[in-house]
């Protein structure tokens, strides 16, 4: 039975989303590159740091955002991991493997690809979202575990 969560935030998610979109727009308009995290990291892992090391610079910027947020707000945002270690390891392997084979993730396909009106990216997004929803259902409501 679906229940809607109480106190659903709208402003913070929208503002955050706009920032994500703005960041993707910036990387595209100035670097001519798609802000797909799995691609950025994946290519670094393959030894391709990008022209003028742009991929490394992007990753460093990403890694600086947490400390900056902490400095500005005095605390990190809420953070809760429910998966146990074995699950995290299996999940990590699947995320790493799947995003490279599928050529993208939520940022690359879900944001950039869809913003670019790519049928490929829309398809990929529908697939990984549907699968993720099924997995969560199985784990939370059908007693399935690793």
């Amino acid at each position, binding site marked *: 039975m679906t229940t809607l969560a109480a106190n659903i935030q709208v402003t913070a998610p929208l503002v955050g989303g706009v920032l994500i*979109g*703005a960041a993707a727009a910036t990387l595209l308009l100035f670097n001519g590159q798609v802000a797909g995290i799995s691609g950025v990291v994946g290519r670094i892992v393959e030894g391709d740091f990008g022209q*003028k090391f742009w991929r490394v610079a992007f*990753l460093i910027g990403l*890694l600086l955002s947490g400390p900056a947020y902490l400095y500005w707000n005095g605390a990190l945002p809420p953070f809760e991991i429910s998966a146990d270690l074995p699950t995290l390891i299996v999940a990590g392997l*699947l995320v790493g493997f*799947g995003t490279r084979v599928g050529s993208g993730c939520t940022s690359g396909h879900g*944001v950039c*690809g869809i913003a670019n009106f790519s049928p490929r990216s829309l398809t990929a997004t529908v697939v990984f979202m549907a699968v993720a*929803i099924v997995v969560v259902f199985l784990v939370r409501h059908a007693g399935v575990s690793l």
Partner: protein
Amino acid sequence: MNAVFALVAGFVFGVGLLISGMTNPAKILAFLDIAGVWNPSLMFVMVGAILTAIPAFAYIRSRGKTLLGAPASLPARSPITPRLLAGSALFGIGWGLSGFCPGPAFVALTFGDQRVWIFVLAVVAGMVLAHITLKRLDSI
């Protein structure tokens, strides 16, 4: 100059993830848990992000060059392949199991929770495996 814009883009991207709550696996899982207590927050994040990015992509599609006059590389309109579908499905399983996708995981590396490091190491390992696998498949 390239590096500076990329650094800023990565930083703003991360701040966006943090502000939107997307660095919290619990929030992501709450969005994916449509049979439970559903929190649609992620939808607002994606809508906000996509709408904001659309004009930039339209511009680059028509102009073909960046604002600095350099070539822009948009992915080619290639067909939907088994790889796309299989890879997306596998990614979806991992995402559903953990509530983590690449971006938020890297941002969360600085939160001081060792479990994130273990997850990210597994992601990198998975990427290496994918690289090896795809190389083998493409050389057959």
